[in-house]
């Protein structure tokens, strides 16, 4: 069941071990006893979701501005050097910083060579409202690249944040559908940037146009229409 909430609306979220996700706020109350039953309100408009046992609640909206959160993978563009690392534009309010050593096998002597304008697939390692977000291009425990690093060739396109979440959902139809037509590579950033690459330029263009057409903030096309759309394209 889907229910739409608007900012300021009360949400019937109650649980002994309540966890609130983005877009929800528990109003503070004066006494400890009341704290548990204090009302929860939505602060963003969107669709209200909760986990099966009703302990986790969140609001799924569709914005375009990215707010970094730890452990999310993002795609960014290098805008400049700063000291030992780089400054990366990930579409958030502040530029993120990427340490020169946060790569697989990077040492003080041997750092990857990245130019201004290079494209990166990275993970947000630190996101705090009072600090610049920080990125890393490896798994901090294993020191393996884990698929992160510089993205070469291909094309990057901007979509809404919801679209990038949809693309990350393995059950979503679009990428498998495209994959059944031709070989493709894709990297989806939670910041609404999608990198796609395929052997042929026209295939890459087709992918980009399909993603734009399916984007709920744009065309909002469904599966049957996309199939029709694809058959019209010269691929």
């Amino acid at each position, binding site marked *: 069941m889907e229910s739409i909430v608007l900012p300021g609306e009360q949400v019937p979220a109650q649980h002994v071990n309540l966890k609130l996700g983005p877009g929800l706020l528990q109003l503070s109350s004066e006494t400890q006893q009341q704290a548990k039953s204090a009302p929860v309100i939505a602060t963003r408009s969107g669709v209200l979701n909760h986990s099966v046992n009703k302990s986790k609640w969140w609001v799924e909206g569709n914005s375009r501005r990215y707010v970094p959160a730890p452990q999310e993978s993002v795609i960014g563009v290098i805008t400049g050097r700063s000291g030992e690392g780089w400054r990366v534009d990930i579409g958030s309010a502040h530029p993120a910083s990427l340490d020169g050593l946060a790569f697989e096998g990077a040492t003080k002597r041997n750092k990857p060579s990245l130019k201004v*304008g290079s494209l990166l697939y990275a993970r947000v390692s630190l996101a705090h409202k009072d600090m610049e977000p920080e990125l890393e291009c490896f798994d901090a425990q294993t020191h393996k690249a884990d698929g992160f690093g510089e993205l070469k060739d291909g*094309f990057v396109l901007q979509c809404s944040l919801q679209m990038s979440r949809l693309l990350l959902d393995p059950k979503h139809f679009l990428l498998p559908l495209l994959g059944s037509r031709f070989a493709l590579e894709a990297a989806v950033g939670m910041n609404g940037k999608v990198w796609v690459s395929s052997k042929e330029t026209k295939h890459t*263009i087709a992918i980009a146009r399909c993603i734009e057409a399916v984007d709920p903030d744009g065309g909002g096309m469904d599966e049957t229409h996309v199939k029709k759309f694809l058959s019209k394209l010269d691929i």
Partner: protein
Amino acid sequence: MRPPSPSIPEKKFLYDALKQSLRLDGRDMLDLRTPTFTFGPELGWVECAMGKTRVIAQLDAKMVKPLPERPFEGIITIHSEISPMASPDYEPGRPSEEEVTLTRMLDKVLRRSDAIDKESLCILAGQRVWQLRLTVHVLADAGNILDCSCLAGIVAFKHFRKPDVEVIGDEVTVVRIEMILLPKLTFFEQHSPSERAPISLAIHHTPFCVTFAFFPDVLTRPVVDPSLLEQRLSAGLVSIAMNAQREICVLHKAGGVPTAPEEVLRLINIASILVKDLDKRVEARLLEDWEGRKVEVR
């Protein structure tokens, strides 16, 4: 802040695609984005959209004293501004280079091309003339705001109707006209329409602006109506304003890649074909809108 330049892969991909004559939005190299027009309840209010680029143009008329050196001519003023609303790349305050280009181009295409007959705006020589004020507001910039603004501007001029006036001696009375979307009323039975209907402006010709973008690679052919990414990565723009009678009104190519004279002439030819199409589309759309409206005289 200067907009961040596109990343290296984007640049490379776009140039590669253009080399194969492919564009990212699936258009042909010489395809315009189809413009759509939305007319407001008032006459002379039009919103023009080309893809995601959107511009509003609004025209109104006011009676003023003419300039002493031109007592028989009406006055046309054009106001345009690119606010940060169109795209975060623009800053408020000092006019940016794009804004200067836009303002000057609108002025040249709409005013200095003598598209609108200024003498017909005169009511009483030396005392009363119409001042037409056009405001062009860029709502969203997804590339090529220049063509979109010029198009919105000229359509606003064509859509506008100025009120009828009666001159008795030195007295000027305006026949008040309220233009509203009304169901077809029986008003025409009471007044003869030729006497009282608001008058469209005297327009000599309709110039349309078409912009081409050149790319650094010499073998890549120029594209028409560049998108935002194409515009950013282009190595020079050529804007040609023409009318359907194959007259060039404005040609603007400043710098950019040097072009052989034959290429310039080829572009003019292409523009003349595109402009003819645009002209038909605009006329059809204006007619459609006009038929849905009725005039009421109060």
